């Protein structure tokens, strides 16, 4: 089992969700995050004083999947989030050792979906 963590542009969340659905991946957790990557942020002026905003708003998604679903999930995120412009984000894949469904204490790969 893997935990796929991805940072994407906020406005791409809907597209990513749709791509996931098409591949029958329905479980997902989303939170917001501030990120700093190759996209360098921007400057603005507040009451005459410069602000460097180098933490940009991103959406962080977490999807836990069985190994067979790693590829489709990554595909889905790429298809939904890629604009080929700096700031598109990253996908990280982490190993999961256990997965438990709280509702029925089910454990292991069948709990993930």
């Amino acid at each position: 089992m893997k935990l796929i963590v991805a940072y994407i542009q906020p406005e791409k969340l809907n597209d990513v969700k749709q791509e996931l659905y098409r591949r029958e991946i329905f479980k997902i957790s989303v939170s917001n995050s501030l990120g700093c990557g190759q996209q360098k942020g921007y400057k603005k002026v507040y009451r005459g004083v410069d602000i460097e905003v180098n933490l940009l708003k991103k959406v962080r998604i977490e999807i836990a999947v069985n190994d067979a679903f790693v590829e489709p999930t990554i595909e889905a995120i790429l298809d939904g989030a890629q604009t080929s412009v700096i700031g598109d984000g990253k996908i990280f894949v982490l190993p999961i050792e256990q997965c438990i469904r709280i509702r029925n204490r089910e454990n292991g790969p069948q709990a993930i979906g």
Partner: protein
Amino acid sequence: MKSRIVVMILILLACTLSGIGADEISSAITLHQDSFDMIWLLVAGSLVFFMQAGFAMVEIGLTRAKNAGNIIMKNLMDFCAGSLMFWMFGWALMYGESVNGLFGFSQFFIGGNDMVLFRNWMFQVVFAATAATIVSGAMAERTKFSAYLIYSIFISALIYPISGHWIWGGGWLSRIGFFDFAGSTVVHSVGGWASLVGTMALGPRIGKYVSQGSVVTSKPILGHNLPLACLGVFILWFGWYGFNPGSTLSGTDPTMALVATTTTLSASAGAIGAMIVSWIKFKNPDVSMSLNGALAGLVGITASTAVVSPLSAIIIGLISGFIVVFSIEFIDKILHIDDPVGAISVHGICGVWGTLAVGLFGNTTHIKGLFFGGGFKQLGIQFLGVVTVGVWVMATTGILFAIIKKSHGLRVSKHEELAGLDLAEHSTESYSGFQIFTNM
């Protein structure tokens, strides 16, 4: 001869004893009469001014957090630019000497020493600003700020004053008997029509309408701050006690009591009407619809507030509340016109309804509506007014927005719209530090 002298002495004596001469009495009474009007119009005018805050809060509340600062700027600046314009041109075109009943033409750049003129200008400028600011809500979340400024200037300097002249400035509509006590048409419909044209010229916000094949689905874009929207509605309602009762234009006209009463009842009925419809249609008593309903009731009663009974006011309000929900749905789901705050329905449609209501429910010696034995005459006149003002506003704002669109651009870029106008146009954030989760 002797008795005459005696008489004069006596009168003088009587007057002196009471410490005040006949002349002084007379001038005191004139002064007092003037002072009533002065105080009444200034207090009422201040209340109407405060409605700017109400509009700002309603519009902020019913749109997204990322555009709040832009809405602030639009609401602030349409008043500020508008008041300068109305000082330069607007007043002159509206209340200057009438040129064939079509527009006024004198008293540009008001000055001098005539306090009554200043008083009247003060009371009228806040009405002009109300008409102007209505549009900011309908065009929210996607209009270029500079384009909006240009629009503001023209509506306050030209468009509003001219139709205003027809009705309140002694122009042709008033001469044939058109009646609009406090501005269902003069103010609200004008704002409503301009909103309609503006939103059509702009197009909907990104993500508002999703088409799959030939089916277009309307997507909700939620307002981010209902408490502010609620506050805004209460402020508007409060301000309406200047808007309507103040429109007696006289501090000694007791009709103001009837006006306050019908205003209260119609607003209440409007909110209840909208709540009931939303409860039936959507299975829930909808908050923002009920708030819109109160405003609908207020707009609906504005034309007839001084000439209808309390019971009629309740009926007018209730119908306004019904209308506003259906109208918002129709405009959104059938016409696919994107009006984030419902300005077209609240001010435009209910403004029309309110104007016609005079011809239905009016019941005074001069104004007799259909239901009170007046036949179709008044109703016909009201209808004519509604149509001509509608045509005037839609034509002029149509041209205006078309020119702006061609020459300057009316709408921000897609990227700016997605980032939010606060960042894109004012490089600010309205809620710095708050975590706001948006993928819209």
